[in-house]
């Protein structure tokens, strides 16, 4: 197996990094290209840019952002948020993204995963699953889908998804640790890589997640601070987690 991956997640809107609670009062906290480059320099294995507004008007700014990121950053990155169809996804990949993540649109029409995989290859298709109590939620956690998380993960794989980004709504933002129970259930049920997301508060949490998943998404734990990624990598190495040498 390839080395475990640390993946900083940047929330973006209208081409800027934003911070906010439950989509209210989004605050501009910087330039995604600069922050992404700083994370890359600090040893990030990949990056995720999540468009938290994902409105139609915002779409052009997202493609523009992807182009700017691709010009600057020499590690893989995923773009998600509001990808509705094959055209959206293809535009983002042609602009330089390596993968797209889909969530609500795939729950609404699971055939989307197959169409994306046929056009782009499975390695470019990430199914983002938001889970709570073993059930799938869509629309940024606002709506319960009538699907069980593990079953949906299996179906998404069968339909062509190449990776699962599994976010525990219960754990997200708590900094009390990843939801290892649902993460390991999903990881055992599928044969594609799983990225654990939600709840990281310290290096022990991340090490624990990397024990069951192939990658860990890092959001609030980093506080938009690349130096925190550096110290986290050192702490993980001290825990015996083998990370890549990014020199």
């Amino acid at each position, binding site marked *: 197996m390839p080395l475990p991956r640390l993946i900083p997640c940047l929330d973006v809107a209208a081409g800027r990094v934003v911070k906010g609670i439950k989509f209210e009062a989004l605050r501009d906290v910087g330039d995604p290209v600069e922050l992404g480059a700083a994370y890359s320099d600090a040893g990030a294995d990949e990056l995720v840019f999540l468009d938290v507004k994902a409105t139609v008007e915002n779409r052009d700014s997202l493609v523009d952002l992807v182009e700017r990121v691709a010009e600057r950053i020499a590690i893989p990155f995923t773009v998600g948020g509001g990808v509705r169809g094959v055209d959206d996804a293809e535009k983002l990949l*042609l602009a*330089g993204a390596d993968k797209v993540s889909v969530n609500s649109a795939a729950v609404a029409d699971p055939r989307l995963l197959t169409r994306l995989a046929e056009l782009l290859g499975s*390695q470019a298709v990430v199914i983002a699953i938001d889970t709570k109590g073993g059930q799938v939620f869509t629309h940024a956690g606002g709506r319960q889908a009538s699907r069980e998380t593990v079953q949906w993960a299996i179906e998404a794989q069968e339909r062509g998804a*190449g990776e699962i980004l599994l976010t525990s709504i219960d754990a997200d933002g708590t900094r009390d640790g990843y939801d290892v129970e649902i993460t390991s259930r999903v990881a055992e049920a599928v044969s594609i890589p799983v990225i654990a997301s939600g709840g990281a508060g310290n290096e022990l949490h991340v090490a624990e997640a990397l024990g069951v998943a192939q990658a860990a998404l890092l959001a609030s734990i980093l506080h938009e601070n690349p130096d925190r990624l550096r110290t986290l990598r050192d702490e993980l190495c001290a825990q015996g987690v083998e990370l890549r040498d990014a020199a």
Partner: protein
Amino acid sequence: MIDVAVCEYGAGNVRSVTVALRRLGVAPMVTESRDAVLAADLAILPGVGAAGSAMRGLRNRGLDQALIERVEAGRPTLGICIGLQLAVERSEEDEGVVGLGLLPGRAVLIREGRVPRIGWAPVEPGGETYYFAHSYAVESPAAVGYSEGIVAEAAQGSFVGVQFHPEKSGNAGSRFLQRQLDRVAVWQAAAGDVSALPTSGS
């Protein structure tokens, strides 16, 4: 200045490859033209996605023959990811695809570990760590580098193919691409092209 042609044939984005080369001071041409691919000092066959549609994309543009002719003439050529898998004799993807035959061997579905195989892994010899994202892998007697038992690099004549993505592999990837450019400079010098030799101020 090394004249680099990056094949544009409808198999994913070529932006990352061109950006990575520009960082090394090269101004690559992205082209669908078989003549441009034939004439370049270095031709690069990048690509992601499925082997079947990628091969059709090459054939429709006549780039398959251009690549074969280049390699027969000993001109440096680099395949990346799907570019390696298309270079062997056949792929079992898409119910069987006939490859370019630049290398002996075939591309087969990875049967161990999680697939797609996604992430960073060391390559031996050399020990550099590169980024991989693939479901198929090459089996070839021309293999020269391995990653976890999987062929990471294969070479024969003037063709070099890699399974990893140097353009997405940070500093290690830049070093790999620089070695490819160095290979071209050596080839140019051996071919007696004095314009290829470094000149002051260039």
